[in-house]
């Protein structure tokens, strides 16, 4: 058994971290929220880096590779989401022209899930959707909505004239959804791990009543509970990504579990980080609320946490009976 990242993955993580932390940051997320500054790194830089298209046919990358990158993207609240690229790769599998268009930056896509605001709709010109069981593609009118987390680029999409790309695409759509949930969970993992680091660092340094607040059980145990959740989320993300690459039969359960765990873990990590930071933690200038905003949005993306828990239960009971 070797359920751990290999050297290759660790090198990839380091490279992604270097690129992403130079091009995105909580400060950029704040600027996007505050004055409508562009989301960073943005589509252009992201595809240029090659990280977004790592699961493209010729890139030789796996979903696990993309998950490793996505964790780093989550740490710095990068946008647009790698979820969008992960889903596009599955949906457009075989459509070399469009995949090349995304990779060279000429095609800006978003994936339309339901009637609600769409992830990465801001700046997208081409939309992929499931209509009557067919994968369709077309332009759309985007109304960007007032953001909770501006890096998610959510907007309402009114689809224009669409073309059918794949007539019988339900299975493909479901796989894209599950790979997307896996990558969403990986971004959540990065954000949660970053919040934990922030909390631990502050608790180790901030003094109250003559000692570091992290020495008090109330603070220490709060952080430990987050640590346990973050590590278990990490395990679920790896499992889901591995299943996407190697065990399609395990993907439905693994992806739903990862999605659900990411939603609750990130929310818990964000609320704990704010609490540990005391007064400073709920100021605009502190980074904590930017991650908290991410948590409040992400839990509702690609189906909400309630739907994911429900799916886990149905799959578990189905497998058991």
């Amino acid at each position, binding site marked *: 058994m070797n359920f751990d990242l290999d050297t290759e993955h660790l090198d990839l993580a380091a490279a992604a971290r270097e690129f992403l932390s130079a091009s995105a940051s909580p400060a950029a997320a704040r600027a996007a929220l505050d004055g409508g500054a562009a989301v960073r790194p943005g589509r252009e830089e992201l595809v240029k880096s090659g990280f977004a298209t790592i699961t493209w046919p010729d890139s030789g990358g796996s979903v696990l590779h993309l998950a490793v990158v996505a964790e780093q993207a989550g740490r710095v609240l990068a946008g647009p989401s790698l979820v969008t690229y992960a889903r596009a790769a599955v949906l457009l599998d075989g459509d070399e022209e469009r995949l090349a268009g995304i990779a060279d930056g000429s095609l800006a896509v978003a994936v339309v899930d339901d009637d*609600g605001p769409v992830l990465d709709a801001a700046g997208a010109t081409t939309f992929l959707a499931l209509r009557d069981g067919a994968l369709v593609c077309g332009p759309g009118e985007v109304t960007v909505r007032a953001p909770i987390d501006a890096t998610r680029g959510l907007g309402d999409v009114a689809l224009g004239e669409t073309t059918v790309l794949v007539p019988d695409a339900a299975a493909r759509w479901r796989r894209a959804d599950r790979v997307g949930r896996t990558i969403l969970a990986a971004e959540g993992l990065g954000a949660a791990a970053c919040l934990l680091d922030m909390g631990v660092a502050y608790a180790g340094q901030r003094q109250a*009543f003559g000692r570091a607040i992290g020495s008090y059980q109330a603070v220490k145990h709060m952080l430990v509970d987050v640590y346990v959740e973050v590590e278990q989320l990490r395990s679920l993300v790896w499992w889901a990504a591995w299943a996407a690459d190697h065990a399609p039969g395990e993907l439905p359960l693994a992806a739903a579990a990862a999605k659900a765990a990411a939603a609750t873990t990130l929310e818990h990590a964000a609320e704990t980080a704010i609490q540990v930071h005391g007064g400073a*933690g709920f100021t605009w200038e502190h980074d904590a609320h930017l991650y908290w905003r991410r948590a409040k949005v992400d839990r509702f993306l690609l189906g909400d946490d309630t739907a994911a828990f429900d799916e886990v239960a149905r799959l578990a009971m189905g497998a058991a009976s």
Partner: protein
Amino acid sequence: MDFDDTPDEAAWRTRVRAFLEQSRPDPDDPRGWQAALYEAGFVGVAWPVEAGGRGGTLMQQAIVDQEMARLGLPALINLIGIGMCGPTVIMHGSADQKSRYLQRLLRADDLWCQLFSEPEAGSDLAALRTRAVREPGGGWRITGQKVWTTLAHLADYGILLTRTDPGVPKHRGLTMFVVDMSAPGVTVRPLRQMNGDAHFNEVFFDDVAIPDSERLGEPGDGWRVALTTLMSERLSLGGGGTGIGPKPEAVARHVAAHLGALSADRQALARQQLGRGYVAALGARYTGYRQLSRISRGELPGPEASAGKLSGTRSARDLTDLAVRVLGEDARVAGDIWQNAQAVLPGMAIAGGSDQVLRNIIGERVLGLPAEPRADKGVTFRESIG
């Protein structure tokens, strides 16, 4: 047992209600609104007459508060002054200070703020660093920074807790002052919270002069003076923290309006979440009535009054979370009042005593559990900051 007013209370309530029902406060003139209420006898009800108050009971004051809330009238602008600063001046001020400040405070001629917390002194308030240095002439010079100061941008005066002697253990080297917020060297900077609003301020003191006549209590006695302030805060809060977060009835109304759009499964889940939050909110509300009953008997609220805040932050969080969830697809974007309410709540668990500090207080002072050994005991402030 009954939930009724005593005959005296009922008579008072009738009088209050009659006045309030015909009042039409101008939203652009909060000082005028408080002044009108003061002239009518409904501000500082429980303050002594010689302090400009009415010499009434805490229950009478509570009835005024209840009736104002019932009619949805705007809160008093000088809330901090009335609840915290004024009582401190009453207890520790000189005759001169009392005559200059108290009535004007009640009438909102002057607005007040409370300058205690600092970036490096939150839960551990006595670790504050703002220095007051005595001048040869007897006056004082203040340098330092305060934070989380409500109303500082409007306030005329503040009560200011400073360190005058770093060579003794931290609780013993503090001194309290009244500071004129328009004095040279005082800078107020609004502080944005995570929801984008600026309810609080940072206040910087750069070599600000305060005459010795503005001292409140003896030099070095500031901690005892500050405890009066904090005790008064508890008194003025009343109701056991039931004011935290949205009213459960408002959440129920909102959920009821959105329930039909949810699947049957989601409706069942929403009812569970609403039921749990609602029961917690009712529990806090009726526990608040028990505290009010004690006040009605003339007793003072004890440390157990903080219990409502502990459960209140929790149930407010759960109810607000539900209110956001029932928005469905719109829950992903901002623009709804519940989204904003959600972004206020994390601060609630910290402001006015963090959940952790309140649990210590209740554990030790109500349940009688032993305190933790104090690492900073007997150490001078100067030593404690290394």
